[in-house]
């Protein structure tokens, strides 16, 4: 990425913070993801009015209001679809999608698959805390099978998704994992994700201090991935086979051409067009 230079960015991370005070529990990983997004946007010198942040429902989906970019806090699970419509019709904007593991992989699962497959130039940041925090602590698709909860006593017994596997299999062009306990590292991943054309997926492990106090141990477990990023899908797939969910860094950065609508020139006025109905 950029090297020490004498030029300063026109923006500082703080420029992107809105006046709205986050209501997240102190200790929530999302605070640092919010600041990492600000750092990334500042590093890329993007004017706030040229950025749109789209979210669904959940604690992490509150992010758009905490930034002074354009934003859309939509319904549960549909943020990637809404962002797709926006980016396809407004390719000039930088569009980020933010949300949690429930919003993205449960109700949003289908749209996640198709967003990866479509490979529209979006950056999707999922703050994965392996729980439904907003609704007080139910298992999510990334929750460990033995995690005890009221709705699933003794654990679900279900194997959790590995979102990176699904993203790779579905065609995402950039796949990375970060950790909210490493804000600068996360900022770097987000910056690269935005810069890489196509659908960029960044899973940020973001502990839930209220419902998953056990996740305090994550900072002891996470580690930089022992290998460099690859642009070979096969290699990325093999690496994922031994991924325990705590390797940080860029897994895959491909060269897949992003999908965008062809800009159609106006070739017909309405009168001409209507002639097709004339007898």
């Amino acid at each position, binding site marked *: 990425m950029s090297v020490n230079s004498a030029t300063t960015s026109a923006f500082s991370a703080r420029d992107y913070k809105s006046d*709205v005070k986050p209501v997240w529990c102190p200790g929530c990983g999302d605070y640092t993801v919010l600041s990492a997004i600000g750092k990334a946007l500042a590093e890329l010198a993007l*004017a*706030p*009015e*040229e950025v*749109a*942040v*789209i979210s669904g429902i959940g604690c992490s989906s509150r992010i*758009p*209001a905490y930034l*002074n*970019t*354009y*934003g*859309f*806090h*939509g*319904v549960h*699970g*549909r943020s990637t*679809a*809404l*962002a*797709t*419509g*926006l*980016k*396809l*019709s*407004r390719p*000039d*904007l930088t569009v980020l999608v933010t949300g949690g593991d429930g919003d993205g992989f449960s109700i949003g699962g*289908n*749209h996640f*698959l*198709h967003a990866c497959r479509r490979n529209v130039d979006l950056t999707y940041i999922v703050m994965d805390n392996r729980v439904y925090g907003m609704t007080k602590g139910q298992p999510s698709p990334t929750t460990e099978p033995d995690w005890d909860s009221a709705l699933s006593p003794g654990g679900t017994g279900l194997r959790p998704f590995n979102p990176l596997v699904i993203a790779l299999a579905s065609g995402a062009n950039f796949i990375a994992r970060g950790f909210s306990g490493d804000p600068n590292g996360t900022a770097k991943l987000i910056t690269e994700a935005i810069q890489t054309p196509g659908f960029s997926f960044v899973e940020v492990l973001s502990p839930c201090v209220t419902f998953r106090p056990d996740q305090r141990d994550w900072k002891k477990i996470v580690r930089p991935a022992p290998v460099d990023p690859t642009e070979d899908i096969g290699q990325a797939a093999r690496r994922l086979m031994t991924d325990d969910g705590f390797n940080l860094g860029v897994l895959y950065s491909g060269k897949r051409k992003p999908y965008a*609508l*062809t*800009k*159609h*020139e*106006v*070739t*017909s006025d*309405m009168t001409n*067009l*209507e002639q097709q*109905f*004339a*007898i």
Partner: protein
Amino acid sequence: MPEIDHVLNSVSIAVTGSGGAGVITAGSMLLEAAAKAGLYGLFTRSSGPQIRGGEAAAMIRLADGPVGAPGDVFDILIAIDWHNIERFAIELPLSDTSIVIADPSQGAVPDVIALSGARIIEIPLKELAKKIKKGRQNMIALGVVTALIDLDQDVVDQVMVHVLAKRGDEALRASREAVASGKQAISEIGARVTSPAISADGTGRWMISGNEAAGLGALRGGIRFVAAYPITPATEVLEWLSPNLQKVGGSLVQAEDELASINMIIGASYGGTPSLTATSGPGLALMTESLGLAVASEVPVVVVDVMRGGPSTGIPTKSEQSDLNIALFGLHGDAPHLVVAPNSVSDCVFSTQWAVSVAEATQTPTIVLSDQLLGQTKVIIDPPADLAFVARRVTPAETGEGFQRYAATGTGISPMPIPGIAGGQYTADGLEHDDKGLPSSQVKDHATQLDKRSDKLDNYDFGDHWAEIEGEGRFAVICWGSTTATVREALERLSADGKNFRLISPRLLAPARPAEMALALQGIDRVLTIELSHSAQFYHYLKGHFDISCPLQSHHRPGPLPFRVGELCDVITEWSGS
């Protein structure tokens, strides 16, 4: 519109067959030829569940004025074979004045047909086709029919050239010979059917289906982005829009499901592009949550619902007017929005265009309630005038510190910044919010925003387009959507007998316009509603949301069969005691 000023003279023709007989092609060519000759007409079809090779019926009605309803009986039924005719028999009413052309090689004429008392004429269609190299029975049938109704063979030939050109010279030659053979066969028998008089040729008229018309209306209104998921009977809207959007610089994207479709168009609209999707009942049901999002965040979108038989998967290939409830009341919470219903195939153009313009002006999602009858019927019409209603969104003159996206204004409509405008940044939200758009659960904010979202619709000047109001009398018939054309023709017939009724067909179904309806009902003593719904959804809507002081009765039945003119003449006559 289109109004008719006399009792229509018409002839109704059905062509049935199966297994690749090509009856739909023949029916379509017949309509086109009749149109060129100067007749008006409509063309619908019915088929079995097979994707190809199933039984099918092409049903055409030709008339001397704009026609929107099926005829009471078929004057001509030409059957290439009798496979599964029981499926359609009820859609092919015959009488003792009808002519049935049957191929003796296909076996005896089934009772269900013969019992009508129609005159059976035997013509060996299969044998005649075999005598011609590459000859097809449907072209023999076309020859028979066009001769029976004395349609100018020149126009028939023009249509054949136009339709079959891409299949090559052989196909054209074979068809010409087949048509001639059919014509010969029937003239040897000497049968004739009276057909409507032609006053002028069809130059300048259009042949168009309701689904195509809705697409055209969307483009006229300014739609430039469509995201959609195919569903019967709405898919043709998308098929038409896909290439035609491109011609005007727009685009269509196929989404993975209806949940994605509605959210994609909300996203595109948020970005400043007037956007639309088309679906049917099951798809609309999926979209309701996100339609609520569009209401709450004040993002305009248009959803065309081409209604089909319900509930659930229902009867996908047939029509009904039973999505009224979900369109009006299907959103959770108090979520005022617009519902517009085209009242004819031709009106699909204007109503969709108008829906786009009012959606954009009021920043509200608008549901356009079309149906299978309108959508998949092809009609001959005079080209609809372009009343120049286009998308015009209010954008802010000033932005920056203190800008309030959802400021309370006199009209309830607040300027909507487009992303890219500096100082206009806001987060659109499904959560209730204050005037800046920040989430709020406060009493005052909820009240203010609820008022804003309903006032902006209640205050909006919809003008006269809210309904078609025609005719004078002491009794009124209120109907909507595809039923209108049939009611109109029924009232025209009754008027010829000196019985006059007022017809009111609302185009704007939501918000309800009780004051305007009261005006429309001035001088009216009794009202009858007519609708294709088992539970009389429209009748109950009127009762619950309008102040109709005079006696109100309902005539309702479900699909799959459309109303017929004669059927409604009887209903209205009995109701009015005349």
